[in-house]
């Protein structure tokens, strides 16, 4: 079995890729995918620690996170579609700044 450090390294890398993606990309669909990537990085770390500790607790969190991620994706895509209709084709994230102070 691979040492736990490898899993954590992969997880950290995935999280970093996701975070940078959310910050630098302006396409909301890509941003959504990056968020999924960050969530799954977290899931991977949870499972790795769960195995390492020989405990099932981490699995429970993972199921919760997967459920939340599914809901988030559904709502997020719904919002994107709504914005797409409203803005008639323009879905650049930086142009959605009506709420600025």
């Amino acid at each position, binding site marked *: 079995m691979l040492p736990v450090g490898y899993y954590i390294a992969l997880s950290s890398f995935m999280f970093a890729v996701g975070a940078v993606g959310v910050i*630098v990309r302006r396409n909301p669909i890509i941003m959504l995918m990056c968020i999924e990537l960050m969530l799954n990085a977290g899931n991977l770390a949870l499972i790795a620690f769960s195995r390492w500790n020989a405990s099932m607790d981490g699995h429970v969190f993972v199921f919760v996170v997967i459920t939340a991620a599914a809901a988030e994706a559904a709502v997020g895509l719904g919002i994107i579609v709504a914005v797409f209709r409203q803005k008639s084709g323009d879905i650049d994230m930086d142009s959605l700044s009506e709420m600025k*102070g």
Partner: protein
Amino acid sequence: MGYAWLAIGFPLLGSLINGIFGRFLPKKAVGWTACFAVGASFAVSALVFAQMLVMPETSRHVVSALYTWLEAGGFRADMAILIDALSVTMMLVVTGVGLLIHIYSVGYMGGDTGFSRFFAYMNLFVASMLLLVMAENFVVLFIGWELVGICSYLLISFWYEKPSAAAAGRKAFITTRIGDVGFTLGVVLIAAVLGTVSYDAVFGRIIGVGSDMAAAIALLLLIGAIGKSAQLPLHVWLPDAMEGPTPVSALIHAATMVTAGVYLIVRAAPIFVQAPWVLALAAGIGAATALFASSVALVENDIKRVLAYSTISQIGLMFLAVGAGAFAAGMFHLVTHAFFKSLLFLGAGSVMHALSGNTSLNKMGGLAKKMRATYAAMVIGALAMAGIFPLSGFFSKEALLAGAFHAPFFGRIVYAAGLAVSVMTAFYIFRLIYKTFHGESRMSEEGWRHAHESPISMTAPMSLLALGAVCVGWIGLPSRIGQVVIASNNAFEEFLRGSVSAVAFGNEAVSQWWMAAAALGAGLLGIFAAWCCFIRFRGIASVFVRKLSGVYQMLVSGFWIDQAYDRVFIRSGRALAGFMARQVDIGIIDGAVNGIAGCVGSVSGMLSRVQTGYMRSYALAVLAGAVVIAGYALFILK
């Protein structure tokens, strides 16, 4: 005697009916309801009186409690009434005179749009006044005291569309409030020092608190009495109160409410006798007020204001009497005054009715030919007030002056003041009669043709009051004058002696022949002087006005007291209020509020720039926050 509550209940019910449903009822029903309510109340009072007469004298003191109104620790105030000689006397006066004035009002107010409102207030007033005089403790007395105050306010400003009436109502309410503060403090002091407010207990314990404390209580109660009874220096509201309808002036501002101060002193006599100098002060204030008000009445040219100043001066005489310790004589004058003064007011109302509301004596004259019944009634009232034998005023004024004469050190002074007031009283009331009913008419041709006698619903109550003004004095015939025995005792004084304040009543002041002659002579002198000035030598009065114009101006302006109050209190109050509004309110209070709001606004304006509206910068901020927290957890907390 629990049924005595009905005396309060009937007018209260009448007030509710007329107040709530009155506007939907025909005027006839409203008038009947109001008169029936007061009539029933009078019947109850008469029944209580009759039952009391057959009771032995020692048991003429019945307390009836409905429920406990307040209870806190050892303190307790019941909603209770006390039936004794004093309260029955007042009940009979309030409901008797009240009934006649209600009947009169049906005719007098017949054309007014506020007909049902008027009777709702009047009935409420009768109920409140009865509560005041029947109360068994100072707290219930206070409730009645304030209720009659509010009724007075409502009825003075009854024609509230008129700015002067609204202002007069406010003036009355605010001025009496100054006295009420004293009264309230007095009641609180009684409760605090004696632990009870019930009359019997208070009067039983008052001797134990020392004369200084008793004097403090008596002084505070006296302040309340001065405000309510329009004595110096709080008299200014009563002449203005004449803005109200005339029956209101007759009932509230002549016969009943304004005499509540006298009633209060008589009721609380056991407290007052513990503080002789407060009683002397009351006598002094009464004498000063009587002299002041009757001298102003000499030159007043408004028929109702003459009567208003006359009321102030007559109540001054009552204060003089009770201050001199002649409590029964003071009450006696209260009763007779209720009859002849309300008669005079109703007569004045009848004249105003005939002249479409004119109240200026300078635009009257010669009305005797047109208004026989009113003329006769007013002459009877005037004779009674002037103290002419054998009308009621003679006996009460005689008893009052005899009592004043026998007062301790100040007796002679207030007696002389009383005699001087008697002369002036006779003069100004006959000046009013002559200027109204005698001589040539000074009205317009059309006004003269329009002048007419009032309807029977107004003249009938006046006739009954005239009968009272003649006869009521006979209930208090002095037991003897000089050495001549007239009756075994003074019936009125003997009756009152059974009341709660019995301990305070000294012996009847024995009158002398020369006193009776002096009192009668003073009245005749005044009438003769008025006859000279206004009938025989018509021009004399105007000569006086020209020669003594300074004195005349002083009297006409009421010794400039209103102007002085305006300068000292009202203007300084206005200035203070203006300063508060302009400087303190706008500058400090508004400044603080606006300053805080401005601070919050500018800070939030700066903070709102953080919200760029760029989704990605928020994400960066969240990430940075997460990194900071993670770093804190990893490296600091360990």
